[in-house]
């Protein structure tokens, strides 16, 4: 697979010496990481290693204590950065979907485009229907989240993000809350998004997905990035004891 990484431009997402504490707990330790435009980075590691916190910092769901975090050329925490505006460029897919239960699938997809992006309703609805068709849910346009399976809800959630035409998509364990038979339908949609050239950071343990579309796997443990490499390097030849221990646990079955 050819890499789209530019060698000397600034990254779409740049962590430089980022630290974060929850009370006395150092949840992010001196994180330095650059994600290039169109790059797909998979983040993995044991529970509590700071993976979710890492990507939640990117759209400001969590704030950082020190270091620099620059997203799409804008430094977070800088008074000149309009966070609300920056967030419209960043799609975020949650582990628990977080669809709006009082809105239909289509309304979930069109709500932010209409009210935040100020796209005319008719245009937003046309785009919303196309996106739902794209994630295989053309027949569920008027269904409420409670009437959908977990896999369907997560696909609506992905369509909801795409409706904002973001530059970056972040996925926080998107398949962890799903029944096993629904995982692949969500991964297929994510692969399609990746193949269209979206810049993505994905917290997941789905190795098949990582091998298929990721340019890089980042392994975290205890708040620090311990190892980073191509999926093939990481899965076949892990360099550290901690990553070997982690892989032996998730690959045992």
């Amino acid at each position, binding site marked *: 697979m050819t890499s789209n990484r530019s060698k000397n431009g600034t990254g779409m997402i740049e962590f430089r010496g980022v630290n974060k504490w929850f009370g006395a707990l150092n949840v992010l330790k001196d994180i330095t990481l650059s994600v290039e435009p169109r790059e797909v980075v998979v983040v993995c590691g044991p529970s509590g290693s700071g993976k979710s916190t890492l990507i939640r910092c990117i*759209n*400001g*769901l969590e704030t950082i204590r020190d270091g620099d975090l620059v997203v799409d050329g804008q430094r977070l925490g800088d008074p000149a950065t309009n966070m*609300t*505006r920056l*967030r*419209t460029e*960043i*799609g*975020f897919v*949650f582990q*628990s979907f*977080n*669809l*709006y*239960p*009082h*809105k*239909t699938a289509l309304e979930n997809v069109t*709500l*932010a485009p209409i*009210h*935040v992006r100020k796209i005319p309703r008719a245009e937003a609805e046309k785009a919303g229907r196309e996106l739902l068709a794209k994630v295989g849910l053309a027949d569920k346009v008027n269904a*409420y*989240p*409670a*009437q959908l399976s977990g896999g369907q809800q997560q696909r609506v959630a992905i369509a*909801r*993000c795409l409706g*904002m035409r973001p530059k970056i998509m972040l996925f926080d364990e998107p398949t962890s809350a799903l029944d096993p038979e629904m995982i692949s339908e969500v991964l297929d949609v994510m692969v399609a998004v990746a193949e269209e050239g979206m810049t993505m950071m994905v917290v997941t343990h789905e190795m098949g997905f990582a091998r298929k579309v990721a340019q890089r796997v980042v392994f975290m443990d205890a708040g620090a990035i311990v190892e980073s490499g191509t999926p093939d390097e990481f899965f076949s030849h892990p360099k550290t004891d901690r990553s070997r221990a982690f892989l032996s646990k998730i690959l045992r079955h």
Partner: protein
Amino acid sequence: MLENFSFRTIVEYLPLFGQGLVTTVWLSVLSFAGALAVGIVLAAMNLQRGWLFRVPAKAYIDAVRATPLLAQLYFLYFGLPRLGIVLPELVVGILALSLNSGAYVAEIIRAGILSIPRGQVEAGVASGMTYIQRMRLVILPQAFKVTIPPLLGQAIVLVKDSALLSLIAVAELTRAGQLLASDRFMPAEGFITIAAFYLLLYYGLKGLAALSGRWLGLAGART
């Protein structure tokens, strides 16, 4: 025993009871509207992070909930004129019920808003919504649904509390019963009749609650 019970007198007094019922209904409606207004403002103040709005709202809610409604009513009725504010009985009554019920309504609304999962707020934040947009499009429509049943319960309490206004000579339902009791020395007839009317109002509100429940149930079930 029942030979002393005069249905005839009740029928004779029915127009008076009818007027009392009508008064109870409209003053309850106005008071509940007032309570909603007071409650929304207090709940909004109470949900702020800064103490500037939160502390006064909490103090007000505590003060109202810790003191008897009768004491609050007497304060407004006898106390305010001493402070130079003279209002008609009916206005004092509606004011007392609004201010009292508003404190309870505030807590119901606050609980409704806080019952919405954190993930809903985050979904709104992540899609670039402002605080106002999140409240208007995501949180309040969901909170509204969960607050309807307890709000109707509070409305039932308010209707019964409005009986206290008979003590400041508002011609509502209980006052009609008192008049029958004192004019004709027929307390049994007077108070049984108003009990029946209150029961009627209670079933009316309960029916409304059931209807709203069915209507809200249709519009998208919560997961």
